[in-house]
């Protein structure tokens, strides 16, 4: 087990190194400079600025400097956001994004599992059709459309929740729903398909022959077996949501990281682009490892053997 984990961690680091390298050079290929009012600046001013930020050095030197800094946990200083260190910028903004992402994920997955199970148990009835139609709508309607509709009807007309901004829990409800509907629809579809398969299997027939109730069969036998394919889906989804949905954060004026990421790309804020990309990649790589571990917990057939020690 330990050997396996060490190997996995080594590959994770290798992956991150490759991501950093590719992103760095691709980013440098983007047109433009980090200076927003370049036309008004003299050549000398630009040169001074370049020297200050180390942009006058050859690209491979810049690359090595960046990698060196990253090894020490130094992600550089943002060009745009008041010259704050990127690590500080991320730290101050990741909280809102992460909270929203986790809430949306829990909302979507839990409700999706329930809806998908109900559809599967009542397959080929009107309940199933209703659930399928709802999940198609949920998957097809872009979340920003839903966000605006929620703002208009729930916040403005009914006044149940604040329209936008970031305060207490009540501020998170509408963006959570808007973000969570996608994973909800996807989960419902996945669980429905998986569970229909499982419900046709021999061990469900045996469970019926034991005299278990329909509810007992779904809860004790069908659900766990249908969850296996879902795990693959949930991991990457969670990272995407946690590292911020730029559109939703913009619509609800949430001080999250997605909003910042967009701005940094538009303004060639190299250290911020790199920082957020590395955060996203690290999250993804970690989640893939966690997914594999969760697989083992849900499905004993692929449980990691302890004999590898």
């Amino acid at each position, binding site marked *: 087990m330990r050997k396996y984990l060490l190997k996995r961690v080594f590959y994770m680091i290798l992956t991150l190194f490759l991501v950093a390298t590719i992103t760095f050079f691709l980013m440098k290929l983007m047109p433009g400079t980090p200076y927003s009012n370049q036309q008004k600046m003299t050549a000398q001013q630009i040169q001074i600025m370049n020297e200050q930020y180390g942009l006058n050095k050859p690209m491979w030197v810049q690359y090595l400097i960046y990698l060196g800094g990253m090894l020490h946990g130094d992600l550089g200083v943002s060009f745009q956001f008041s010259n704050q260190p990127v690590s500080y910028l991320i730290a101050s903004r990741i909280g809102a994004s992460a909270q929203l992402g986790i809430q949306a994920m829990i909302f979507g997955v839990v409700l999706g599992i329930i809806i998908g199970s109900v559809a599967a148990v009542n397959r080929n009835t009107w309940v199933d059709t209703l659930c399928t139609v709802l999940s198609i709508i949920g998957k097809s309607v872009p979340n920003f459309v839903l966000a605006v509709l929620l703002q208009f009807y729930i916040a403005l007309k009914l006044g149940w929740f604040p329209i936008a901004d970031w305060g207490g829990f009540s501020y998170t409800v509408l963006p959570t729903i808007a973000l969570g509907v996608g994973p909800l629809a996807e989960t419902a579809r996945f669980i429905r398909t998986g569970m229909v398969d499982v419900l046709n299997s021999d061990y469900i027939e*045996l469970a019926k022959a034991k005299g278990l109730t329909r509810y007992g069969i779904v809860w004790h*036998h069908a659900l766990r077996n249908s969850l296996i394919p879902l795990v693959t889906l949930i991991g990457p989804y969670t990272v995407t949501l946690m590292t911020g949905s730029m559109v939703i954060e913009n619509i609800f004026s949430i001080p999250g990281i997605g909003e910042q990421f967009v701005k940094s790309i538009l303004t060639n804020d190299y250290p911020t682009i790199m920082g957020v990309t590395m955060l996203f990649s690290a999250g993804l790589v970690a989640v893939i490892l966690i997914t594999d571990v969760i697989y083992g917990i849900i499905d004993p*057939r692929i449980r990691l053997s302890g004999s590898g020690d």
Partner: protein
Amino acid sequence: MAERILDVKNLKIDFHTYAGEVKAIRDVSFHLDKGETLAIVGESGSGKSVTTKSLMGLLANNAEVTGGSIMFHDQDILKKSEKEMQNIRGKDIAMIFQDPMTSLDPTMRIGQQIAEPLIKHKHVDKKKAWAQALELMKLVGITDAEERIKNYPHQFSGGQRQRIVIAIALVCYPEILIADEPTTALDVTIQAQILELMKELQEKIETSIIFITHDLGVVAGMADRVAVMYAGQIVEYGTVDEIFFNPQHPYTWGLLNSMPTLSSTKLEAIPGTPPDLLDPPKGDPFVARNPYAMKIDAEQRPPFFKVSETHYAATWLLHPDAPKVTPPDEIIRRRQTFKDIMAHRAI
């Protein structure tokens, strides 16, 4: 006379399909006494499995019972609600399935899988149920049961898994055990072990067994009585000796003729295929494949003719007016053996 615990009378089951009504079970009657083993023999699609599923109340959604009764002691199973059936399944009537590789939940410890019926029906707590599950595992011959009770199905071989499936079925000491081709998916040496185990457990637990199979070789060692099914009907039934050594229905002849014996040099197959049950023949369903068929076979369904107190066959050949036919050599040889057996018993 032994206590009669199950009496199926004139059972009729239809399946609604897109092609039309499939008349899968057409007027089937049989009974089961306490402690005996009844084998139901027939080829694929003859209605063996459908019959047993109706005993469990586990028919598919598109199946409909259109007539008859299934009396379990003095209650009609067909009149029970789903809720009431849940209390019978696994407790009074239990079932062993065909394929042990797929009939266990891959994500649940086998201890829990064996304990489940106890928790459901006997309302014992988990600890006690696991203790009884352990007893059952020892009873069905799983070695190192104390350790293996925590294992998952994939850690067991096919034969061991079938032992576990048997343990699940027997954990509540059911009155009736339905075994639906329990050895078909196993290799021959394991088959023999499982059959031996079932016989042994039947005595210990005093259960009656309905044994579904298409393998007559398995029947000989297991059953007390045999019912031969064809195209949704029982065509002949009797004690195991009567069916094996004094068969009367041409279909039973065909089955026995296609079974290898020590003396057989060549195996005969039954020509043709079973009739389409969307539009079942009105006479004897075997008429199209029957080399001994008479005109009346195509027109009128034969009633059961009595051969002995325990032996009945539905073939017009037994009618007093029917011409005498010579059955296949193999059957003649078997009848000679039957005479010897009878003579031996008389002494």
